[in-house]
């Protein structure tokens, strides 16, 4: 079972709202390579793993991905705080806003809602671990996108 720790794994203190950036970063919440999918992947695969150390790491990494999800949500929340209707339009946040206002909804940057089709759980240790490697490698592809956004 799980318990909740009332703290972020890493602090989030955004001074300047930026809805255009939030539109991209939200993909790390509900996109095909986001933290929600990562967590569900590891936490689904662990049951049939034939090694205790692999069960252990899938449990602990899957739990950590939930902590990452919370950080991403905190970022999106702070990036979309205190916006005027004009800013919402100018920054291209109007399409998201009409459906969700500033509520956190797990969705890809392209607008596709989070879907379990973004991962696999096969019951085969080698297939699952290989899928995990492929999934983890996707984190490097986002980095250039967010370069320059280190201190918003």
């Amino acid at each position, binding site marked *: *079972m799980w*318990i909740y720790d009332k703290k972020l794994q890493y602090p989030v203190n955004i001074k300047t709202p930026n809805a255009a950036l939030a539109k991209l970063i939200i993909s790390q919440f509900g996109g095909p390579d986001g933290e929600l999918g990562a967590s569900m992947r590891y936490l689904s695969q*662990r*049951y049939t793993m034939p090694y*205790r*150390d692999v*069960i*252990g*790491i899938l*449990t*602990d990494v899957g739990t950590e991905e939930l902590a990452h999800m919370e950080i991403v949500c905190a970022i999106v929340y702070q990036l979309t705080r205190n916006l005027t209707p004009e800013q919402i339009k100018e920054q291209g946040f109007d399409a998201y806003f009409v459906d969700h206002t500033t509520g956190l909804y797990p969705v890809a940057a392209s607008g596709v809602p989070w879907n379990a089709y973004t991962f696999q759980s096969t019951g085969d240790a080698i297939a699952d671990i290989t899928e995990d490697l492929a999934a983890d490698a996707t984190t490097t592809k986002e980095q250039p996108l967010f370069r320059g956004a280190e201190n918003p």
Partner: protein
Amino acid sequence: MDRDTLLRRLMEADFALHETVLYLDTHPKCKRAYENYKQMQKAREELAEQYRKRFGPLTYYEVRSTDGWNWTDYPWPWQN
């Protein structure tokens, strides 16, 4: 007490505590519920401590084994 019995006691204590927490979340000024919580918090911790000492850690914050990392030791909760 064997492992299954102690574990069942701990599950019961945790469940009772959790339901009280749910009540307190929406009734934070209820003194009776808060007294109840404090009693159950103590009972829970005593059971958890007994369990940890005899059967290993419940969370990775509590690993105290003197012969190495035992966090991943069998059984995991779905294996019985």
